[in-house]
């Protein structure tokens, strides 16, 4: 299918969108768009959108699977894909209509802004993303070609490392103490706290901490732990574990902010396109696509929908608080826009839901909690007066988030960069997921 637009069209719309982006106060990285066809898109999906990525058979497997699903029309391809790097790179499918391109360009700027400003992404070092992945690829290829190592050995390590790669710390903004710091902490803990009534209490005995214990404090990063404590490993084996660990760490912030991130991008693409004064035909198509992406998916959870609802609710509550809300929380010190930007910077999904998913919203979104009973999932709580808090707690739990991420798109969402799927396809047929 020939593209029904030219690059000039895209550039013209992009200029208008950028004006609005700046007008609204969004602050994205410089953006690069690459127009690609469906084959390229499949490849990018498999390799997490990275122009360079280390080889592993699982990507080949995934490619075949996605291609088959796509060719049989079981699942669609994402409208776009954007990676967290500086400059940010996004891929646009050339077969999509102009309206869809405009929508995705606006959506991409939302993600881009979120990547740049949300605190969880600080650890990803966006300037070096492409280079890091390239370096990983070079190193892995080097080991494969090394006659004393070879493909089989490299694969054995990678297979095992992939299995554990997501067993790692999830909030990377918390600094991991070094070995010396841990030692100091352990020593400090063993000292009894200063007792203001020391003169009348019996002196507490100091217990000697067990400093030979490994690890001193529980370590969540399994791969690096194994790397640092297995003396049998050769350097290349350690390096492979490091590579897999670093890549997992790169994707952790995206896993931890799925609902916020998708909600934020959807919130802004809606704002931008509404302000864009689209010609009628484009506007109507935009409305259709927007609704398809944002529609709630009964039985599971659509992060686009839930996320956008919460963002809209925050804006409303700070711009136009109701009388009850003013009574309960006092007068607002910030307006809606200021509050939005603050929240996008300092929250992640768990805290975002805990703070801003209100009772009213739970009712409006018609959320319920379900549990496994035998072979069925059964509704265990609905949003009534007693239970809305529990529902919120459940949704803020990592397991539930993992599930809602998984529920949405047809493949490997966990290691994937954000993207929009054509929802008419894709959501119903799922095969062999990567677990979130």
């Amino acid at each position, binding site marked *: 299918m020939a593209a029904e637009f030219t690059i000039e069209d895209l550039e013209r719309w992009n200029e208008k969108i950028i004006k609005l982006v700046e007008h609204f106060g969004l602050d994205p990285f410089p953006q690069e768009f690459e127009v690609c066809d469906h084959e390229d898109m499949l490849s990018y999906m498999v390799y997490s959108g990275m122009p360079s990525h280390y080889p592993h058979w699982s990507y*080949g*497997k995934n490619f075949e699977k996605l291609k088959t699903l796509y060719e049989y029309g079981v699942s669609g391809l994402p409208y776009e894909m954007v990676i967290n790097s500086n400059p940010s790179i996004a891929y646009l499918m050339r077969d999509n209509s102009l309206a869809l391109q405009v929508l995705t360009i606006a959506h991409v700027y939302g993600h881009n802004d979120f990547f740049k400003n949300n605190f969880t992404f600080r650890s990803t070092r966006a300037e070096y993303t492409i280079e890091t992945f390239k370096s990983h690829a070079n190193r892995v290829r080097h080991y494969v070609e090394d006659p004393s190592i070879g493909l089989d050995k490299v694969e054995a390590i990678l297979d095992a490392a992939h299995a554990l790669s997501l067993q790692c710390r999830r909030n990377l903004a918390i600094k991991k103490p070094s070995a010396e710091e841990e030692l100091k902490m352990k020593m400090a803990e063993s000292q009894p706290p200063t007792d203001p009534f020391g003169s009348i209490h019996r002196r507490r005995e100091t217990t000697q901490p067990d400093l030979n214990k490994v690890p001193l404090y529980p370590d969540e990063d399994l791969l690096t732990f194994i790397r640092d404590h297995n003396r049998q490993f050769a350097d290349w084996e350690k390096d492979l574990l490091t590579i897999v660990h670093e890549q997992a760490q790169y994707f952790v912030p995206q896993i931890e902010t799925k609902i916020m991130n998708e909600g934020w991008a959807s919130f802004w693409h809606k704002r931008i396109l509404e302000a864009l004064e689209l010609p009628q035909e484009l506007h109507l198509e935009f409305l259709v696509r927007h609704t398809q992406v944002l529609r709630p998916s*009964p*039985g599971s959870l659509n992060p686009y929908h839930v996320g956008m609802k919460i963002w809209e609710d925050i804006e409303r509550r700070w711009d136009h608080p109701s009388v009850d809300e003013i009574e309960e929380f006092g007068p607002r010190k910030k307006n809606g826009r200021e509050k939005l930007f603050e929240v996008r910077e300092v929250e992640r999904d768990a805290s975002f839901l805990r703070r801003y998913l209100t009772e009213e919203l739970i009712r409006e979104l018609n959320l*319920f909690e379900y549990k496994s009973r035998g072979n069925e999932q059964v*509704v265990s709580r609905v949003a009534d007066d007693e239970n809305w808090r529990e529902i919120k707690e459940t949704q803020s739990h990592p397991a539930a988030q993992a599930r809602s991420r998984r529920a949405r798109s047809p493949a490997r969402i966990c290691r994937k960069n954000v993207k929009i799927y054509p929802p008419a396809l894709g959501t119903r047929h799922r095969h*062999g997921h990567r677990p979130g």
Partner: protein
Amino acid sequence: MSTIFRPYNSSSGQRSDRSAGDRLRHRQKVREAIRNNIADIIAEESIIGKDKNRIIKVPIRGVKEYRFIYGENAPGVGQGGDGEPKPGDVVGQGKDGKAGHQAGDRPGVDYYETDVSLDELIDLMFEDLELPDIERKRLRQIEIERQFRQKGFRRKGIRVRLDKKRTARSRVKRKKASIKHHPGAAQPQRFPFHEDDLRYHHTITDTRNESNAVVLCIMDTSGSMDTMKKYLARSFFFLLYQFLCTRYQNVEIVFIAHHTEAHEVTEEEFFHKGESGGTFISSGYNKALEIIEQRYHPALWNVYVFHCSDGDNFESDNEAALKAAQQITETANLFGYGEIKPLGSGYYGSSMITFFSQLQAANFQTVQIQKKEDIWNSFKTFLSKDRAREDAA
């Protein structure tokens, strides 16, 4: 803020198929998984007499990526559709829930099937097998055609054999020559390819000589061979037949069916016709010996004899059978005897394996086939290269 648009580049030279290497590796793994599961596949699928292009579904368990995932224990949150969800409503099925009823919101188990054509499967199966101890025999040698060896170049040919490098080179030659021939003449802007520049690979068919070989398949078709036993015997011979057809282009195959009498039959009859009657194993062996004597002299031919029976021979025939078997081992390179004793057939007749144990010959081999899964193993026992090597050692 700057934005760059990179247009779509449709020229194929610029585009790379980056996942090709990983796909290849994945396919290798799939092949390996299929190879490891061949015994199951043969047992599960009735591949006998099936069309070669038939697609067989092969379950692949060997190429899984393992991960720790959240289980079903922790509760989750969903969104209601129309109307109010009530506690107790069923919203989804677990992993083993029946499919089709409702779109589940659980991910599928990472287990899938791949389609393989029977032809491919047979290729895979027979990769490591060969007719053991094939010897160089004097006189008549079979000519085996090995096709397509490149030899030389031609100016005419078909498109796929175009040698681009040579073609380009001859164009350069022609260009140099034309400049030399018309010195000082204004050079044309372009110097396009001419039909005379084209060079094609020339291929010849290569022939190679191989020793003559004949395989005699003897099957017991007596009344005691019930449907199950016949099925097992035919499965075995079908594999053998496929193996010979795939790997040896010019091996002659002789089919012999016997009850109390033996007949040489066609392939069609051998695989499809049922018979009944008593059992004189010696009749089959004598028929084989007769055919060998008439048509396939052991001095010129490599002879392989395979016999499948339920071992339920008529008592008085045993001595004769043993004698005939002895004679066969003297003439044949390999004499394989497969005894079919299905488990739970409730009937244990006499076993020829015990009886044949008197026969001490290195090229005589017996196996017992009890169930479908044994077929592949027994087959491998007879024909694997390792076996040949063990014997040599």
